[in-house]
C-alpha cells in the first residue's frame, strides 16, 4: 500500500512534466532533448527563490512559468523554425531537431553550472510527515502531487474544451488541414512549444520540493518524459497520464523492493517492452 501511494504521488508529478514534452513533440513536432534541462533550471530557480525569500515555492511559479514560456518560444522561433522550414519530411526534422536540442541541452547545463555551481541542491519545505492509511508520507510529496494534478486537469480541460485548445489539437492531428481552416501553423507550433516548456518548468518546480538536484540531472528527466510520451502514445494526453503513473509505480516498486540503483534500468526495460510490443503506445493507433 505504501509503495502504491508513493508511486502514484510520483506518477502525478511525472505526468505534468511529460505533458510538456508531449505538447512539444505532438503539436510542434520537435523532439526536444533539452526538455529536462528546462525542468532542472526551473528546480534551481525555485531553490534560489525559496532560499532567498523563504516564501512558498509555489509562488515561484509566477516567475518561472512565464520565463520558461518566453525562453522556449524564442528557442522555437529562432533555432527550431529554420529546421522546420528546411526539412523535407518528418523524419528529417526529427533527426535535425534531436541533434539541435541535444546541443542546446549542453548550453543549458553550462549556464546552470556557471550560475549555480556543480553541487547537489535541495531545500526543506513542507517536510513534515502526514499520516495516511497507517503510513507516513512527506507533506511536500503530497503538495507536489496536488499541484501537478491541478495543472494537469487545467491543461486537459483547456485543450479539450476551448477553441484555442482545439486549434492546437488540430495542428497535432493534421497540420496541412489546419492551414486550410486559417490556422497559422507556425504560430500555433510556437505556442505549443512555449507552453510545453512552461508546463515542464512547472513540473520542475513541483519535483524540486522533494528531490535533490544537480546541473547534470536534466537528461534523466528528458528520458523519463520520453518513456512516458512513447509509452502513452504521442497524440493522446490520457495515455501519457496513465503511462506516468505506470512509470512512477514501477520506479517505486523497484526502488523499495529490489534496489534503488535499478530504478532507471527498470524504466527502460518497461520502455523496451512497450516499444517492441506496442510501438504506437498504450492508447495510440497505428497511423494509416
Amino acid at each position, binding site marked *: 500500500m505504501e509503495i502504491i501511494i508513493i508511486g502514484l504521488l510520483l506518477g502525478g508529478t511525472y505526468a505534468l512534466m511529460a505533458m510538456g514534452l508531449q505538447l512539444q513533440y505532438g503539436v510542434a513536432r520537435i523532439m526536444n532533448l533539452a526538455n529536462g534541462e528546462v525542468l532542472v533550471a526551473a528546480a534551481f530557480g525555485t531553490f534560489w527563490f525559496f532560499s532567498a525569500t523563504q516564501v512558498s515555492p509555489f509562488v515561484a511559479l509566477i516567475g518561472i512559468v512565464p520565463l520558461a514560456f518566453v525562453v522556449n518560444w524564442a528557442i522555437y522561433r529562432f533555432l527550431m523554425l529554420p529546421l522546420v522550414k528546411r526539412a523535407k519530411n518528418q523524419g528529417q526534422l526529427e533527426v535535425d531537431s534531436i541533434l539541435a536540442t541535444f546541443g542546446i541541452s549542453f548550453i543549458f547545463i553550462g549556464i546552470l553550472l556557471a550560475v549555480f555551481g556543480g553541487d547537489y541542491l535541495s531545500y526543506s519545505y513542507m517536510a513534515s510527515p502526514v499520516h495516511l492509511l497507517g503510513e507516513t508520507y512527506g507533506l511536500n510529496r503530497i503538495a507536489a502531487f496536488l499541484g501537478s494534478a491541478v495543472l494537469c486537469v487545467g491543461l486537459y480541460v483547456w485543450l479539450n474544451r476551448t*477553441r484555442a485548445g*482545439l*486549434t492546437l489539437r*488540430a495542428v497535432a492531428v*493534421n497540420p496541412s488541414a*489546419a*492551414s*486550410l*481552416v*486559417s490556422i497559422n501553423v507556425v504560430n500555433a507550433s510556437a505556442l505549443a512549444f512555449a507552453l510545453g516548456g512552461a508546463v515542464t518548468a512547472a513540473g520542475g518546480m513541483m519535483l524540486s520540493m522533494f528531490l535533490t538536484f544537480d546541473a547534470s540531472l536534466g537528461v534523466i528527466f528528458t528520458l523519463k518524459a520520453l518513456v512516458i510520451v512513447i509509452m502513452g502514445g504521442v497524440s493522446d494526453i490520457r495515455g501519457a497520464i496513465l503511462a506516468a503513473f505506470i512509470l512512477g509505480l514501477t520506479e517505486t516498486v523497484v526502488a523499495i523492493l529490489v534496489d534503488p540503483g535499478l530504478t532507471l534500468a527498470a524504466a527502460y526495460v518497461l520502455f523496451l517492452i512497450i516499444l517492441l510490443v506496442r510501438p504506437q503506445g498504450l492508447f495510440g493507433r497505428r497511423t494509416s
Partner: protein
Amino acid sequence: MLEAKNISVFYGRHRAVESASVEIRQNEIVVMLGANGAGKSTFLRAIGGLTPAMKGASVVMDGVNITHRPAHEVVESGIALVPEDRGIFADLTVMENLQLGAHPKRARAHEKENLDRILTLFPRLAERRKQAVRTMSGGERQMVAIGRAMMSAPSILMLDEPSLGLSPLLCSELFRSLTAVKETGMSIFLVEQNAKQSLAIADRGYLLDNGHITGSDTAEALAKDETVQKAYLGAG
C-alpha cells in the same frame, strides 16, 4: 469574383501546370476536367496556397490580390479548399471538425447559422456529432470535408475530385448536394474525372491536358463536344 491567371507550377524540373488561367463568377458551378496527372490537383493547391506557384502568376479574389499568400490567409479571402485527401481531422469528432472550419475570422459572425445550414444539408452529420471522423465511411467523410469547408463562410468552394472513392449511389447523392450548396449562394469550382455527372450540374467547364488549358465552354456545349466525349465520356 475569382480570377487566377498565368498559374505555373514546377516540381523540380517537372512541369505540372503551365500558364493556366480560370475565372469563377458569382454563384456558378465550374468544373475542370482532366485525366489523372493532368495537373488538376496542383492547380487547385496553387490557388489555395498549399503549393507555391511560379513568378508571373496572379490570383485576385473579389478585387484583393492573394497571389503567393499562404493557405491560412487565402481562406480569409473567401476561398475554401477541400483537397484530395479531404483535409479533415480524422482523430477529432464531427463537431470539432465543423468548429475548426469556422476558425477563420470571416466565419465567426455567422457560425451558428452556417452550422444549422450544413446540418440541414447533411442530416447524417447531425446524427453523428460526437463520432470520431476516422470511424466514418468514405461518403460521410466527404460530407464532413465539405461541411468543414462551408463553415468558413466561403464565396467559393474548391473541391478536388470529391467523387473519388465513392460508390455510384453516393456519387449521385454528392452531386445533388453540390447543387443544393450552390443554391445557398456559393460558387463551386471542382476538378473531376467524372465528366458525365459533373458536367450535368456545372454551368461552365475547362479542359486541362498535360498542364495546359486546352478548352473552355459552357457545360452543355462541352457535354456535346466530340473531343470531350471521346476523352472523358467514353463515347466513340
